[in-house]
């Protein structure tokens, strides 16, 4: 009996895992996406806490300039979008959406910083497929994943988590959300948090 039940469970459960997340589906990326398959949803422990000061950092951007968190102090709220890796399905299907909502960020006096642990040439080639991005894309490549590590979102395989942080104008972390790496967070989450911040 147990044997039959085991076989039954395997046959029923296996197809559930055959289902793939259908991200990176834009024709813009065509055959250029490497699919790493289903990954462990979260593989790190946050080192930052909402309500506390966010760690300062400076990183090189694709456009050539260096961007520091401090440069926005007293001026703008900062949304940080860590995505795990260039040329992968979900990540390729996230920032292009943010690219059409600059007005929402402007309205809420916020800037978006996109960060991955890829190097600049890789980020340059990858983001070019997304059209002209209005927000800075930063490379946390070297020392590898140092900023991701400071925030506690560096995974054991060297890529970052899929994470959204919102840091207010005073440099205080106001929102931290580590998504399941396999799933793109809903844009509405950012908008809600930004509107909450703006109304305070």
């Amino acid at each position, binding site marked *: 009996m147990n044997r039959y039940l085991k076989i039954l469970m395997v046959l029923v459960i296996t*197809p559930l895992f055959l289902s793939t*997340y259908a991200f990176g589906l*834009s*024709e813009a990326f065509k055959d250029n996406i490497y699919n790493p398959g289903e990954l462990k949803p979260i593989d790190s422990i946050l080192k930052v806490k909402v309500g506390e000061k966010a760690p300062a950092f400076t990183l090189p951007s694709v456009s050539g300039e260096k961007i520091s968190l401090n440069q926005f102090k007293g001026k703008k709220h900062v949304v940080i979008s860590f995505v795990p890796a260039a040329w992968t399905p979900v990540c390729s299907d996230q920032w292009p959406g943010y690219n*059409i909502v600059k007005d929402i960020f402007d309205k809420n006096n916020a800037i978006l910083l996109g960060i991955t642990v890829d190097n600049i040439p890789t980020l340059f080639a990858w983001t070019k497929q997304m*059209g002209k991005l209005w927000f800075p894309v930063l490379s946390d490549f070297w020392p590898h994943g140092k900023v991701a590590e400071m925030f506690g979102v560096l995974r054991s395989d060297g890529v970052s988590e899929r994470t959204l942080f919102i840091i207010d104008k005073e440099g205080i972390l106001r929102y931290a959300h580590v998504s399941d790496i396999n799933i793109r967070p809903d*844009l509405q989450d950012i908008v809600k948090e930004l509107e909450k911040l703006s109304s305070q």
Partner: protein
Amino acid sequence: MKKVFILSGLFVTLFLFSYLVVAATKPPGVGGVLPELILSVPPKPEHQKYLGLAGEGRFIIPQIKAEVVLLEIFSMYCPHCQNNAQIVNEFYRTIENNRNLKEKIKLIGIGAGNSSFEVDVFRKKYNIEFPLFPDGDYSIHKIVGEVRTPYFIGVKIGEGGAHSIFYSKLGGIENPDNFLSLILQLSGL
């Protein structure tokens, strides 16, 4: 014991069958029929009027009051869909400005993996007048074979819900007039 095994086998077969039906591996082909795509009646009265639907609840594509329905599978996260949005709008307006065609051809968009909020962002960003439907959990996207975006499916609607697909292709609209001519030609309108 034997009975348990037979019942188990039956259950597994049914499960696998239903899974295969839900997750199609290929897009709907020309000459075939649409898989059952169940959508919610849009809340906006102008969209209900456009589709010839009323009230709340759900509907399937062949219930749309039209001779031809064009479905665009898009995503607000897709750069090609973003770039093509204004051309699709032009295509829509070309139809709406044509007295002979406006009641015959209807256009809808389905946002693959897009929540209601995200679909609304896309609609507002590009001033899209035709109805857009969310597909936040990719359930419709899976049924239509997990196509890349943008993807257009043209369906000819007949009497009593009979219908057939006359167009099923990846890629946006390059020229609204040429695309309309193609749709008219392929659908036989």
